[in-house]
C-alpha cells in the first residue's frame, strides 16, 4: 500500500513535470505520421507508403508489413530510450532534494521500498507510454492493412522491459550524483558503451589485442544490462531482421531470451547495490 502510493505519486510527478507529456506527444506524432503514410493498394495486394509501393529490392526477402514494422521499431526505439530517460531521470534526484528527502525518509517505509517504488514508478510511466504507442500502431496496421501482427506487440513489450533494465543504471547514477543532468549524461554514455560491448568482437576488441582487456570487456558486458542485445532481439520478434547481418557474419538472426535474462540479473544486482548504498546515506 505504502509502495503503491509512492509509485502513483511518481507517475503523477512524471506527468506534471511536462517531460512525460512531451514524450507522449512525440509518440503521437509518430502515430499520426504512420497513419498518414501507410495504406493498402486498392486491390489489397501491396502496401503503399505515401502512395508508392515498397521496392522489392528493399524488402530483402521479408514481407512489406514486417519490413515497415521493423523499420518503425528500429527507428523509434532510440527515441523511446533517449526521451524516456530524459523524461524520468529527474524523479530520483527530486526525491532526494533537501526538504523533500526528510519528509519521505521520516515515514514508516524502508529505504529499499522507497527507492524501488520510485524507480518502478518511473519505469511504469515510460512502459505505459510504450505500450500505448504499440497498441495504437498495432491497431493502425490491423485496420489499414488487415495485418494484426502479434509479434510487434510482443516486441514492444520487450522494449518496455529493456527500458526497465536500462533505467536501473540511470537510477543508480542519479542516486550517486543526486543530479538529473549527470544521470542523463551517464545514461547516454552507458547506452553507447552497451552498443560497443554488444559488438565488441568486431569492434573494440581490435583496439588492443590483449586477453586481459578482452576479459574486462566481457565482464562489463555481462555485468551491465545488454541494451543493444535486448533491442536487437526485440526486433527479431517481429520477423527476420534483414539488418542482423550488420552484427557480423557469425551473428545469429534467431530470437534469444538470453540478453533479457543476463540483463534481469545485472539490473537486479544494480538495484540491490543501489538500495544498499541508499540505506547507508545521510540526508
Amino acid at each position, binding site marked *: *500500500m*505504502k509502495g*503503491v*502510493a*509512492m509509485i502513483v*505519486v511518481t507517475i*503523477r*510527478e512524471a506527468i*506534471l513535470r511536462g517531460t512525460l507529456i512531451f514524450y507522449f506527444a512525440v509518440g503521437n506524432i509518430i502515430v499520426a505520421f504512420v497513419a498518414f503514410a501507410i495504406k493498402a493498394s486498392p486491390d489489397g495486394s501491396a502496401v503503399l507508403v505515401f502512395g508508392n509501393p515498397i521496392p522489392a529490392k528493399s524488402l530483402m526477402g521479408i514481407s512489406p508489413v514486417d519490413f515497415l514494422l521493423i523499420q518503425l521499431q528500429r527507428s523509434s526505439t532510440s527515441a523511446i530510450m533517449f526521451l524516456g530517460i530524459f523524461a524520468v531521470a529527474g524523479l530520483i534526484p527530486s526525491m532526494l*532534494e*533537501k*526538504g*523533500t*528527502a*526528510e*519528509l*519521505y*525518509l*521520516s*515515514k*514508516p*517505509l*524502508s529505504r529499499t521500498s522507497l527507492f524501488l517504488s520510485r524507480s518502478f514508478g518511473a519505469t511504469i510511466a515510460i512502459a505505459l507510454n510504450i505500450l500505448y504507442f504499440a497498441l495504437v500502431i498495432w491497431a493502425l496496421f490491423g485496420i489499414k492493412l488487415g495485418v494484426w501482427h502479434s509479434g510487434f506487440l510482443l516486441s514492444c513489450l520487450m522494449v518496455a522491459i529493456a527500458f526497465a533494465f536500462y533505467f536501473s543504471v540511470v537510477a543508480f547514477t542519479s542516486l550517486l550524483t543526486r543530479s538529473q543532468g549527470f544521470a542523463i549524461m551517464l545514461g547516454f554514455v552507458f547506452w553507447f558503451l552497451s552498443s560497443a560491448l554488444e559488438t565488441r568482437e568486431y569492434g573494440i576488441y581490435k583496439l588492443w589485442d590483449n586477453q586481459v582487456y578482452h576479459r574486462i570487456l566481457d565482464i562489463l558486458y555481462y555485468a551491465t544490462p545488454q541494451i543493444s542485445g535486448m533491442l536487437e532481439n526485440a526486433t527479431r520478434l517481429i520477423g527476420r531482421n534483414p539488418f542482423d547481418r550488420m552484427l557480423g557474419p557469425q551473428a545469429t538472426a534467431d530470437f534469444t531470451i538470453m540478453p533479457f535474462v543476463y540483463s534481469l540479473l545485472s539490473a537486479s544486482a544494480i538495484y540491490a547495490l543501489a538500495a544498499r548504498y541508499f540505506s*547507508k546515506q*545521510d*540526508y
Partner: protein
Amino acid sequence: MTIVETQGLSKTFRAGVFKKGQIEALRDVSLSVEAGEIFGLLGPNGAGKTTFVKILLSISHPTIGVARVFGHKLGALSIRQKSGYLPENHRYPQFLTGLQTLLLFGNLHGLKGPILKGKAQSLLQRVGLKDWMNIKIKRYSKGMLQRLGMAQALLNDPELLFLDEPTDGVDPVGRKEIRDVLKGLKAHGATIFLNSHLLSEVELICDRVAILNKGQVLRVGTISEITAPQLEYEIQLESAISERLSETIRSIVREAHANDRVLRVAVPDKHVLNHVLDAIRKEGILIESVVPRRASLEDYFIKVLQSGEGT
C-alpha cells in the same frame, strides 16, 4: 517512562572534495525525554539540533553512540510509525493540493480510504487551511506551508512529535494557534520534541530544555532550573551613581550595569545584594526601589553561548 534516550551520540560529517575534512555536528550527546513532556532543544544555527532529530528518525546515521526511541533501536520502522515530523525548510511536491499532500503522506503512513480523507480534512481545518485544501501548494505562502507541514506531522496521531522550527515564517496569530495545538497534544499525552532558536516561544510551552552549542549539550533542565541560579536585581536610585561608586560595586559583584539612575546587578545571594545597597547608602544616594528581576531564557542562553562553553 523514557521515550527518547541517547548516550554519547556523536556525528562527524566528512567534507571537502576528497572527504578529508571533518565537521563534528554532534559531540557525545546524552539526553532523555520523558513521556508527555514538551522538550525544547535550543541552540544557534549550526548547533546540531536538526542533525540530532534526523538521527533519531534514521534520516542520518550516528558515527558513534547509542539511542533508543520508544525503547527501540534506531532504524526500527515502528519508531517512524509512531512519530510525526515537521522538518525545517520542508518541500512538498508542488503539483499537489494541500489535501492531496496529506493523502499522499497519509498513504505512506499506511492510512487509506475515507478515514484518511476525513482525518486530512479535519487537520486542514484545525490549522486554518480549510479554504485552501483544493488549491495547489505552489500558491501557498511560507506561513501556510508551515501550517500544512504541521497538519502533515499530525496525520498519524503521533505519540512523539518532532518539530524543527515550527513557527518559522508564521505570523503571531498563527504562532499562538500552533502553541495551542501543541498544548492540546500534550494534554492528550503526546510527547513533543521542539527544535527552535525562538527562545520566547520555547519559554512559553516547554517543560524542559537543553542548550546545544557546536554539537555539545551545555545545559539541561526546566526553564526555572536553568534561569534560577541567576539572582538579578534592578535598583532605582534618586541620582546617578559616580564612577567611584561603580568601581566599588564592581569590586563586590561580578556583574553590574549602571545606566543613569538604574543599576542592574547579578548576585549569588541576598547578603551580597545588601553589601551593594550599603555601598550605595554610604555614598549618600537614596534608593527608590529594589526590584528582583528573573533572567529570561534568552538572557541566559546568550550568556551561556558568550561564555564560550562547548568550544
